[in-house]
């Protein structure tokens, strides 16, 4: 296959392996070893994307992770959202499309935005869309400023994976510095992890044709890679990016090409004793008008496309620079057949040795690029002399520029290391190290190969994670290189009409920065937020230092004083799949089930999550029954016959030791320690700031042995609370707590016929009220199963909680249903249980207990012990109440019209006026016993307002209701004690 811009020979591609791919529905060809970007350029594709804000046509600017513009969306098998085409390895059949354009990248309707640009300045969203509400504008802005769409379906082939690893050395970057460090560490016998984000090792040596020991540098790279491949103490990953440096030397790595083809991506979490950062440097843009036009590229990217991918990005080229690096490219670019028309250098003087490398190419010193012509492709550039301001237009199809080099200090900065400005290279370099890491090579501001090797050797001598010292024996003689720069953060743009971009990804222009400064946003973190410069997927890799330089220049201060914005992870965009690993779908947060889930499903239960990930039956509809019909039927069974409820999710704890009584007296508001064995008590737990934390029951088994139950959703928090008190406030107490939530399940039989049913099941326990009264428990057998039976009631009916071990739960449940059939037994779901407790006015955490009420508000004064000098929460409750403020108190509500339902949470206002609320409804249910709607509410001063009328203020109506005691059934509790 013939590619339009492919060179005849050379490059690190395999011309025997031709690969087809499609872009925006058209078929193209590339080779094994290409990236999507190099294959696109080889096929003469220039416009790849449309810009974020102005929809300007954008092409390929960089050759790797630094590219700020060439986002595409991958489709079908490889489906994933925002990908830089410079980062996507070309594969057979790859399908990609442009983003942020409609109907096509060549003709984009959104591009009209650029003509209204003056109406969309920096800070525009903050200023304009405040009134009446941001939500009014959000959908429009999201559509206009979209990135790629997320894939609709999870990947069809394969899965994601995560791994943990521990190592002596983690070396990040397999360029010359990283490879030398790897050899030194590996030869000492230490455990070494080497990761590199390129498809192959070599770093800058893949693009620069340098010599090591009189041979091509890549020969040295290849021999180093070969050596470590045979060492069992080295793990070497290519195509893998270290994207986060966390606390305690933890680095997270995204591996994209995994040896096992069924793994899409793998995430590594590596803890290393020593981390050696060798992440290189990224070329910085120059800022001049229209510096974003397709055909304007970073000079290093042009060299990489020529040398590594054998692609010629243009025929007639102009170079624009403020530093030496482009001069060393001339020989290779000329060899590739590129006609170099001029090197425009902003400096007054350059060294003669550097000038010699220009090889008779015209060098225009003390000059800048004033403008770029061409919309979808450069067709000429305007050069301006800084001396006489004379303009010269040079026709060309490629403008390569270099504003110097930014050491990749991202990981160092993420590790909380500090950075400082270095005048010699006009950029930021690592300063103080906080964790166990060092930076070597270009990411440390060291750019020439000789210096990189010398620095690596000397810095690694000081590192010893292993007994052996790190040394490199052997010579490393390298090609001569030199580097010098004169900072140019931007050309003079006063009175400039055309857009000059500081941050190409976010469309942040010179004008935006000026506006931020004019409006007083002078701190660099404010400039960032006001303009969005340095945000987004590229995190300002090519442009941020120019913004800092510009802010420093405008304010007349040093770059060190401006500082940088925070370097955040991820260093590159990372897929959610890779972060999640195997935690997909139901295993992200698994549901908790009781042993009868299968029975519930087989019996038509409507299941849902009911707190703490417990999957519970809501109700059991029969035939075409509605929700309300099913719930009414279940309630009716409990009130008139018998029902059975699965109470297994209740939190359950056993407490043992000499001081359990004292301990329970501390954590509950009432006295528990006086209980006789076999007896129990309902109790409330508060936090020490006087808020209700949990409610439940506590029973005494014998002198030093107790068990308590907590609400299902709070059992973990209660466990934590109890252990914390014992660990820090009362380490001297002898109290041992065992969490038995999962060791005991329970079937709660409730209803007036409960006792009759129990007697039918074979049992050695007497159930009559005299021998087994309310709030006691008995141990024995039922249906031949060992059981602990507790007389508590959450429904207000006669009720027995039969606790058995999980292996017996289903057997017990099926026996209860079988024997209960003659009494019309029904399984009861959470919904009916809710109705029954509201009829009784029993409180429910999250409904009546919302983190503001205390027990007095709920009418539970009797639970606040007056005898005890102290219990958790006592002081705070009384302190708060002593302020004498009006409290919201629990009341019942009877809607004047018995068929009026009040929505949960509905506000109550004085006389139903549209004024500040005086309370709200916490629950409202259809009461089967009262045949009407009944509700509970928290209402200001509610205890003194029984008999008055409350007005529930709905949007278009007022629901009037009588205020009552919060109990609608068996108010003196005769039934539950029967």
């Amino acid at each position, binding site marked *: 296959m013939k590619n339009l811009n492919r060179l005849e020979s050379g490059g690190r591609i395999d011309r025997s392996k031709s690969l087809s791919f499609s872009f925006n529905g058209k078929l193209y060809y590339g080779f094994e070893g290409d990236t999507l970007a190099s294959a696109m350029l080889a096929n003469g594709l220039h416009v790849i994307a449309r810009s974020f804000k102005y929809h300007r046509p954008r092409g390929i600017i960089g050759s790797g992770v630094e590219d700020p513009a060439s986002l595409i969306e991958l489709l079908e098998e490889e489906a994933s959202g925002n990908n830089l085409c410079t980062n996507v390895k070309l594969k057979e059949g790859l399908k990609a499309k442009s983003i942020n354009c409609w109907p096509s990248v060549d003709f984009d309707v959104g591009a009209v935005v650029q003509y209204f640009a003056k109406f969309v300045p920096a800070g525009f969203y903050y200023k304009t869309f405040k009134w009446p509400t941001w939500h009014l504008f959000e959908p429009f802005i999201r559509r206009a400023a979209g990135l790629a769409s997320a894939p609709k379906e999870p990947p069809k082939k394969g899965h994601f994976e995560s791994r943990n690893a521990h190592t002596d050395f983690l070396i990040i970057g397999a360029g010359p510095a990283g490879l030398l460090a790897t050899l030194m560490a590996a030869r000492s016998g230490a455990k070494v992890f080497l990761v590199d984000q390129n498809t192959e090792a070599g770093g800058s040596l893949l693009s620069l044709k340098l010599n090591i020991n009189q041979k091509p540098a890549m020969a040295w790279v290849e021999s180093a890679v070969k050596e470590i491949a045979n060492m069992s103490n080295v793990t070497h990953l290519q195509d893998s990016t270290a994207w986060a440096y966390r606390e305690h030397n933890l680095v997270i790595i995204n591996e994209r090409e995994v040896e096992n083809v069924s793994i899409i991506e793998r995430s590594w979490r590596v803890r290393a004793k020593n981390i050696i950062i060798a992440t290189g440097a990224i070329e910085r843009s120059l800022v001049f008008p229209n510096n974003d036009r397709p055909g304007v590229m970073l000079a290093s990217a042009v060299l990489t496309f020529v040398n590594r991918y054998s692609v010629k990005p243009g025929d007639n080229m102009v170079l624009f620079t403020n530093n030496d690096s482009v001069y060393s490219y001339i020989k290779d670019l000329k060899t590739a057949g590129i006609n170099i028309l001029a090197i425009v250098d902003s400096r007054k003087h350059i060294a003669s040795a550097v000038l010699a490398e220009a090889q008779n190419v015209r060098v225009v010193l003390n000059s800048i690029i004033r403008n770029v012509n061409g919309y979808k492709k450069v067709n000429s550039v305007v050069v301006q002399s800084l001396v006489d301001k004379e303009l010269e237009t040079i026709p060309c199809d490629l403008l390569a520029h270099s504003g110097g080099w930014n050491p990749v200090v991202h990981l160092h900065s993420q590790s*909380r290391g500090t950075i400082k400005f270095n005048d010699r290279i006009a950029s930021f370099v690592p300063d103080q190290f906080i*964790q166990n890491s060092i930076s070597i090579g270009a990411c440390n501001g060291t750019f020439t190969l000789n210096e990189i090797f010398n620095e690596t050797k000397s810095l690694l001598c000081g590192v010893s994670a292993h007994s052996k010292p790190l040394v490199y024996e052997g010579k490393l003689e390298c090609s001569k290189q030199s580097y010098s720069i004169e900072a140019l953060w931007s050309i003079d743009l006063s009175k400039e009409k055309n857009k000059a971009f500081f941050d190409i990804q976010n469309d942040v222009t010179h004008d935006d920065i000026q506006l931020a400064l004019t409006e007083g946003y002078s701190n660099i973190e404010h400039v960032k937020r006001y303009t969005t410069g340095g945000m987004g997927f590229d995190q300002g890799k090519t442009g941020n230092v120019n913004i800092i330089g510009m802010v420093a220049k405008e304010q007349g201060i040093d770059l060190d004083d401006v500082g940088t914005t925070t370097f955040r992870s991820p260093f590159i965009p990372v897929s959610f799949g890779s972060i999640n690993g195997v935690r997909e779908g139901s295993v992200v947060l698994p549901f908790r089930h009781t042993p009868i889930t299968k029975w519930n499903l087989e019996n038509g239960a409507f299941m849902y999550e009911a707190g703490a990930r417990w999957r519970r039956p809501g109700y059991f509809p029969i035939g075409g029954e509605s929700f309300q019909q099913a719930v009414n039927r279940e309630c009716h069974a409990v009130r008139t016959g018998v029902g059975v409820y699965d109470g297994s999710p209740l939190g359950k704890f056993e407490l043992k030791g000499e001081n359990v009584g004292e301990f329970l007296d501390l954590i509950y508001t009432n006295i528990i320690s006086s209980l006789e064995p076999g007896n129990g008590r309902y109790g409330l737990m508060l936090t*020490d*700031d006087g808020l209700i934390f949990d409610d439940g029951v506590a029973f005494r088994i014998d002198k030093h042995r107790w068990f308590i139950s907590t609400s299902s959703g709070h059992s973990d928090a209660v466990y934590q609370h109890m252990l914390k008190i014992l660990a820090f406030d009362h380490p001297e107490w002898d109290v041992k707590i065992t969490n038995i939530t999962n060791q005991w399940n329970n079937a709660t039989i409730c209803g007036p016929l409960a006792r009759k049913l129990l007697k039918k099941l074979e049992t050695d326990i007497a159930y009559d009220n005299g021998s087994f009264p309310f709030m006691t428990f008995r141990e024995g057998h039922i249906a031949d199963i060992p059981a602990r039976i507790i007389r508590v009631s959450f429904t207000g009916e006669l009720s027995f909680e039969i606790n058995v071990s999980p292996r017996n739960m289903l057997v017990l449940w099926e026996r209860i249903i079988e024997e209960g059939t003659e009494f019309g037994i029904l399984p009861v779901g959470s919904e009916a249980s809710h109705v029954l407790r509201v009829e009784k006015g029993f409180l429910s955490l999250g409904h009546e207990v919302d983190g503001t009420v205390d027990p007095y508000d709920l009418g539970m004064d009797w639970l606040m012990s007056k005898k005890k000098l*102290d219990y958790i929460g006592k002081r705070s409750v009384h*302190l708060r109440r002593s302020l004498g403020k009006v409290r919201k108190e629990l009341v019942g509500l009877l809607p004047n019209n018995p068929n009026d339902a009040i929505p949960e949470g509905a506000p109550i206002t004085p006389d139903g006026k549209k004024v500040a609320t005086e309370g709200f409804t916490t629950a409202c249910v259809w009461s089967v016993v009262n045949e009407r709607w009944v509700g509970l509410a928290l209402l200001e001063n509610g205890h003194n307002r029984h008999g008055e009328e409350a007005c529930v203020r709905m949007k278009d109506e007022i629901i009037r209701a009588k205020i009552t005691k919060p109990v609608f059934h068996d108010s003196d509790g005769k039934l539950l004690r029967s």
Partner: protein
Amino acid sequence: MLLIHCPFCKNRNETEFVYGGPVGANRPDPNLVSDEEWVDYLTMVPNPMGPVYERWWHARGCDQWFIICRDTVTHEILENPSEEP
């Protein structure tokens, strides 16, 4: 993600632990302090830039509560802190 030293399980990842806040004053006898002192006890917790003693619970491990001294700037967990909490 911190690497936290549990006295029972040794070094484990932070995801296994629950944070229990910095170590403040001991709980006073509520009957012996003024309102102000009681409110101070509840609300005034150390929040320094630098070393601070704090409580952690090995929730997905051995259930132990324990105290470490962590530098809030560097996250370094000091093995031999100078003074007791």
